[in-house]
């Protein structure tokens, strides 16, 4: 009997090709589209999200037919609302900048979906992420490695996976050379999604207007307040703290005569602190909710390459344990836009391994 794999299918090219690769490798593949979010009624008009719309379901189903694999739609809306939507809204309202994809990976794809897969008798869950998982028997641990196609690497959003989750996960795209190869395979297999554009933005926020989304959800209108400088001098009025993120320069709505950057958000005072060029850089950060992959616990300080945003360049730093679940990261060179709420992810200095990561708290 071939081993069973449940693959999360979005209808996009990546998960379609991942499904095809697994089928070719001889697994019994079961395609699942996770119904996460229905969309919203906006001004009487129904807007679907991009991630799990009916057309995405149709696309995924067509791919499943084409590959000759079983296919189901499963309902995860309650879990998604609790772990992703509510978290997203709470974080912004607390002056932080959340990363919903990380939460979705941690709680939905690699928790709720794994549970469903086990229920169906599957040994693994697979996704179309660009990353690799390898078992290292010398240290008896599952390792998360960057994808061969470094430009597509998605390990930043996957650092939160624990050993149990990694042991049950397959990411067949990690070995490919990049999106071109993915599309070539899709073309070759005649998969209907071969020419679909990449998905972008936050899947559940129409038009990427997250402030409006939060308003529709909470009913709390934006609360305008003051822009201040580091000394507390009022520089102008802002539209509401959820509209701003650390390092932001554009869209402040005021001309200051010189470039000004958001360097801090003060929820208590409802203030957005602005600084001149240079002040948006940080020498260090504190991170919490740590998850380590290459080892269980950080005992001593280590050197690592560090990413503070999905799109940030890696920077050299020292990681210092403060407590079991808290570290201090001291950069060799100050880093731009270190933002509470975002993840910080550590990579081995000379290798592809993800050491671990956590959520930036300060």
């Amino acid at each position, binding site marked *: 009997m071939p081993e069973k794999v449940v693959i999360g299918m979005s209808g996009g090219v990546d998960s379609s090709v991942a499904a095809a690769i697994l089928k070719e490798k001889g697994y019994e593949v079961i395609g699942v589209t996770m119904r996460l979010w229905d969309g919203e009624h906006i001004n009487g008009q129904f807007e679907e999200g991009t991630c799990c719309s009916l057309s995405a379901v*149709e696309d995924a189903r067509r791919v499943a037919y084409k590959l000759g694999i079983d296919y189901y*739609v*499963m*309902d995860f809306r309650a879990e998604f609302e609790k772990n992703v939507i509510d978290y997203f809204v709470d974080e912004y309202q607390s002056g932080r900048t959340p990363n919903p994809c990380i939460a979705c990976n941690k709680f939905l794809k690699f928790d709720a979906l794994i549970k469903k897969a086990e*229920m169906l008798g599957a040994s693994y869950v697979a996704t179309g992420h660009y990353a690799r998982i390898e078992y290292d028997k010398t240290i008896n641990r599952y390792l998360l490695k960057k994808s061969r196609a470094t430009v597509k690497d998605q390990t930043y959003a996957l650092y939160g996976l624990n050993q149990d989750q990694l042991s049950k996960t397959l990411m067949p795209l990690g070995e490919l050379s990049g999106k071109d190869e993915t599309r070539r395979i899709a073309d070759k297999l005649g998969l209907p999604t071969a020419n679909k554009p990449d998905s972008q933005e936050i899947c559940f926020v129409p038009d990427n207007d997250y402030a409006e989304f939060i308003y529709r959800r909470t009913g709390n209108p934006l609360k305008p307040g003051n822009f201040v400088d580091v000394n507390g001098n009022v520089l102008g009025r802002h539209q509401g703290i959820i509209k701003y993120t650390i390092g932001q320069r554009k869209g402040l709505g005021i001309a200051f005569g010189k470039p000004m950057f958001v360097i801090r958000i003060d929820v208590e005072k409802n203030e957005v602190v602005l600084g001149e060029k240079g002040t948006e850089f940080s020498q260090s950060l504190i991170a919490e909710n740590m998850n380590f992959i290459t080892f269980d616990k950080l005992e001593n300080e280590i050197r690592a390459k560090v990413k503070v945003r999905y799109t940030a360049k890696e920077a050299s730093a020292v990681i210092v344990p403060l407590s079991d679940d808290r570290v201090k990261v001291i950069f060799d060179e100050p880093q731009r836009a270190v933002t509470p709420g975002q993840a910080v992810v550590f990579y081995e200095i000379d290798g592809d391994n993800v050491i671990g990561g956590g959520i930036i708290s300060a």
Partner: protein
Amino acid sequence: MSNSRIYVDNSATTPMKKEVLTSMLPYFSEIYGNPSSVYAEGREARKAVELSREKVAKAIGAQPNEIFFTGSGTEADNWAIRMVARANKAKGNHIITTAVEHHAVLHTCQELEKDGFEVTYLPVDEFGMVSAEAVENAIKDTTVLITIMTANNEIGTIMPIKEIGAIAKQHGVIFHTDAVQAIGMIDIDVNDMNIDLLSLTGHKFHGPKGSGALYVRKGTKIGSFITGGAQERNKRAGTENVASIVGLGTAIELATSNISEKTAKLSKMRDYLINEILEKIPYTRLNGHRTQRLAGNTNISFEFIEGESLLLMLDMKGISASSGSACTSGSLDPSHVLLAIGLKHEIAHGSLRISLSEDNTMEEMDYIVNSLIEIVGKLRAMSPLYEKVSKGNA
């Protein structure tokens, strides 16, 4: 699909009978005429359509000229409700229905509300039954239509249609019933039951999908729903789907020829299934009425379980059943029917509908029960809530 599968979702659709298929086959490429044409090919096709009309009429005690073919039961519901409402606008704007109707009825009523109609959605009791008295009390001077299903598609409850028909007649209100689930399962006589309009579809009784009919009592004021040619006596334009109409005729004749024999067999299997499940699996409840129930319908809630997981695991065991909620492109919200009979959201979510046909066997019932014991046990073992409850009892 292998032969070893057990199909118990006959309320969703049924496999077509061989005889039905055989009767249809000539009407695809041999007798291909347009029934509206005057020449021989056309006349032959017309004859087949009219013979089928007679069969449908006979099955419900109607006259052939009271039968109009449609493309589905849903179309028949839409037509009946919308067009009666529109044709009788001068008389009034009030419609009476129940909270447990099929969406073909509910959504149509909701559309009419947007157009200024007033709709009363009568509640049902814990068994899914509407009371005839409540129907009578809801009638006003402005009431133009009562639309109440003959039997419920999810929980199988058979409504007091004859009483409602008598009340409607007494008050001079037009009475429509969605009999999609009832044809071939209970005896229906539109005159005896005072039904003015009745919707049916062939694929629920081993006929073809895409076949349906609306019975309209002679003299009932109703406009045409699809306009165009003069087909169906100017009431439903579009070239007749001859083969499908023929299949509907064959199927309804077969389905209504042996109702008592069939329902005796089905209810025996059904009652065995219900008793076994309720006895052998704790924290279960039967939804619907114990006796006023479609012969093949079983609907059971399993606490601490999601219907979706249950269905998938049954599928893996080769059993095709359904839950209250139709997944995929439809809604995943808990069934409006189960909520209407007072179930809590989380219990409504863990519900399973098993609907039988004559093709099923007692051996299959045993296999279903044993599979359910295993699957429900497995799913509950994964449920933290169940752990708490079962520990609390120990």
